[in-house]
């Protein structure tokens, strides 16, 4: 039996597990996908928000400001790449300048540090030399960029060292109460028992809550499409550029242009309500809108700079057209004791995740005393990317280990050693996308054109994969229908 059952292994679920694994608790994380970064955790702008968009006093405001500091601390401890770039919100029309002042006031009230209004195109360009012709901007030094998937992977791998159990490919399909505990059943009929149950299912939170017996929430999935631009442009963008937020969709920050820590640049997201909580599709019309919107902020890219498009889905608790402010909902349900619901955790949910985890811990602590573990491991060992090492060190390692000499992904310069370590990841995630997120192989401008067959070869020759074992991401995403000819 587990003390804590967390359903959903993404940023929020894994942060909660990290927070609780400091104590003598038996923790299980149930993730329906074959890896922890296939949901919203791997599909976002990769921005640590400062907290000036949200109504003062709200959970979003408090947890975002708290999370901003905390997630940076965690990333330092976990050795996850982030860059304290700051960001600017730019006004292109005089009437938008008023909006900047309003946001600054909100931000100041929320305790966001260092917000500054800067007037005049020249002054704006001193901060960000490549921004389009703006009349003014608000500068937020507390905003940062980070690698969202490496963060979640680092959390999960650390959690494993602290005896958190991760169940991948494990979709909870039934929850029953027995003797005051929760009895969970997954899609394969396996059963799990836990004393506390935490709903960290993101866009599926209403559905899961219903499974536990509380049918009072609704989620309206809202899609955000992105364009991803070639990292060759990286030197031309030093920080995220955001517009003044749109008023058409509630809590929508507008199409922004954001550098990533690895180099490529994202443009997006859009905001369209859809039916399917996993409708990760891109559409020609929206891609065109993103291109136009991005170009206004930062006129430095061409159509041919796009290397990939992708989509995330927000867990919005309000229907289309409803522009009222709504907050995160984090509470233990009175009617189902020990069931902690997290509803509507959309942006700034990722930034807030460490603070959300603190709130969840306090809910539990109200009912029971948590005893700190004697040996808590703060971080799993994480290596630097080989490509980021000094040349001398690269040569030394390549001399010692041939696997460091062999470059598998030419675009991102990923070595065979790194591919093998990703294949051997402690979570046991076995998909090609798992290797991609961990190493950046297949993520560059040729999108696996060169390295995919090489990775396939490694999996076959060194890990004994058969044709049917290759899976791109989700269950059922087979790569090969078989062999062309019988192997001798």
């Amino acid at each position, binding site marked *: 039996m587990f003390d804590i059952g967390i359903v959903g292994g993404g940023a929020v679920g894994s942060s909660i597990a990290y927070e609780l694994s400091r104590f003598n608790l038996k923790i299980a994380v149930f993730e329906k996908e074959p890896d922890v970064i296939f949901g919203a955790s791997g599909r976002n702008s990769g921005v640590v928000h400062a907290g000036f968009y949200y109504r003062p006093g709200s959970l979003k405001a408090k947890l975002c400001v708290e999370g901003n500091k905390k997630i940076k601390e965690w990333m330092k401890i976990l050795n996850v790449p982030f860059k304290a770039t700051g960001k600017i919100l730019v006004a292109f029309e005089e009437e938008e300048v008023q909006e900047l002042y309003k946001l600054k006031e909100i931000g100041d009230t929320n305790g966001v540090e260092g917000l500054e209004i800067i007037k005049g195109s020249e002054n704006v360009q001193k901060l960000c030399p490549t921004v389009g012709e703006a009349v003014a901007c608000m500068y937020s030094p507390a905003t940062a960029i980070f690698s969202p998937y490496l963060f979640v992977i680092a959390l999960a791998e650390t959690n494993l060292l602290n005896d958190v159990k991760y169940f991948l490919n494990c979709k909870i399909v039934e929850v029953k109460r027995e003797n005051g505990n929760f009895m969970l059943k997954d899609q394969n009929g396996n059963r799990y028992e836990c004393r506390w149950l935490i709903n960290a299912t993101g866009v599926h939170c209403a559905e899961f809550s219903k499974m536990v017996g509380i049918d009072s929430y609704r989620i309206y999935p809202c899609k955000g499409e992105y364009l991803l631009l070639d990292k060759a442009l990286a030197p031309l963008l030093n920080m995220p550029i955001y517009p003044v937020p749109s008023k058409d969709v509630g809590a929508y920050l507008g199409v922004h242009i954001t550098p990533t820590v690895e180099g490529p640049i994202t443009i997006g997201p859009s905001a369209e309500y859809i039916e399917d909580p996993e409708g990760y599709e891109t559409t020609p019309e929206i891609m065109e809108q993103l291109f136009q919107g991005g170009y206004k902020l930062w006129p430095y890219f061409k159509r041919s700079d796009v290397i990939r498009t992708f989509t995330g889905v927000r867990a919005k608790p309000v229907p289309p057209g409803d522009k009222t402010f709504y907050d995160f909902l984090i509470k233990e349900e009175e009617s189902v004791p020990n069931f902690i619901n997290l509803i509507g955790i959309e942006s700034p949910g990722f930034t807030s995740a460490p603070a959300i985890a603190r709130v969840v811990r306090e809910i539990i602590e109200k009912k029971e005393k948590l005893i700190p573990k004697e040996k808590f491991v703060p971080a799993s060992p994480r290596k630097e990317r080989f490509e980021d090492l000094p040349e001398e060190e690269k040569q030394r390692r*390549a001399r010692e280990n041939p*696997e460091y*000499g062999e470059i598998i992904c030419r675009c991102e310069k990923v070595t065979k050693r790194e591919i093998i370590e990703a294949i051997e990841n402690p979570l046991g995630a076995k998909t090609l996308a798992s290797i991609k997120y961990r190493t950046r192989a297949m993520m560059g401008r040729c999108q696996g054109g060169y390295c995919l067959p090489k990775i*396939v070869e490694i999996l076959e020759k060194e890990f004994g994969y058969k044709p049917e074992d290759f899976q791109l991401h989700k269950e059922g995403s087979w790569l090969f229908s078989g062999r062309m000819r019988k192997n001798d």
Partner: protein
Amino acid sequence: MTEKDVVIIGAGPAGLACATRLKEIGVNDVLLIEREKKLGGILNQCIHDGFGLHKFKETLTGPEYIERYLQKLINYKVEVLSDTMVVNLFPDKSMILSGPWGREKIKAKAVVLAMGCRERTAGAIWLAGSRPAGVYTAGVAQRLMNIDNYMIGNEVVILGSGDVGLIMARRLTLEGARVLMVLEKLPYSSGLPRNISQCLNDYDIPLYLKTTVTRIHGKARIEGVTYVSLDDEGKPIPGSERFIRCDTLLLSVGLIPENELSREAGVAIHPVTGGPIVNDTYQTNIEGVFAAGNVLHVHDLADWASMEGELVADFAKRYLEGSLPQTQNWIEVKAGEGIRYVLPQRISGKIDVNLLFRVSFPARNKHIVIKDKDRIIKRKRVINPHPAIMENIEVKRDELKGVQSLEVMIE
């Protein structure tokens, strides 16, 4: 640091031809670098025939074509470093090599870029819809099937009518897959006419022109595509959307010269060819750095890439000897009306030059005209100019006397 007279990066048809030719003309201190274990580049996976008609006057498969060069390479004792990637190239012609043997920096007096090209991807063409498994570029599919022995799917739609896609349509059919259709957004195929005939028509595979995919369906494995007809401006015609079920989508939507290393070294790249800007000695803007084959511009035939490699060998030798034509007054060569690009982009006027170019649109019974301002220097009739077919015109040194600029156009 090791220093070589000539380092050739890439041992495909261009690099191999360049290396062997260098030996034949007496340049001995040559290093040929190949990132794969086997030499030959993409030709290793091209098991169909049709290679060598121009170079060897017979039709060969890709591996057979390569074999001709490998024999010479062995006979000439060319120094080869395979399984080795050039990870950085610097403006001073030094470079960092990496392979299972280790990693080190070397230097060259002359560098021949012969890295070939890569395929345009789904992201690069803004392909909309979901991101399931089963969307392969044609060349990757070819490699997975012909080298790695994997069957990639059963019900196949091919987007784009590039040559690799056409070859794969036939290949997949022969292996028992059903190739349902080939879609091409242009009003004409971007592949060679002989491939349309031999790979599609012979197998009753339909080719739909002015048609493209607007949506990929399926979350895990691809389950189908929506495709639409396009009007004369290339815009989707409303109401023309149709759905077809498939488990594989192959993309054959263009090749891009692979110039990441060149760019890093500071080689100027031409916006249309995607390859280095070169002069009539195939030298880039960096002295002693030459380019040949698909890294320079995408060729129709491996034979042309090899011939370019040989040509560059001669110029590299002359560079080492200090006998390349010198000039302060380069003649710029412009692609005029109806011409997509012309190579080389600048000429000295001191040697004969073979101008290579592609037309922008298919046409019939036209003339190619080469002009210096209003003065016609040369005129040549072309029966069926087609963007898929590279054309050429030789211009002799004598014809270039007094020429200030050159423009190639179609009339």
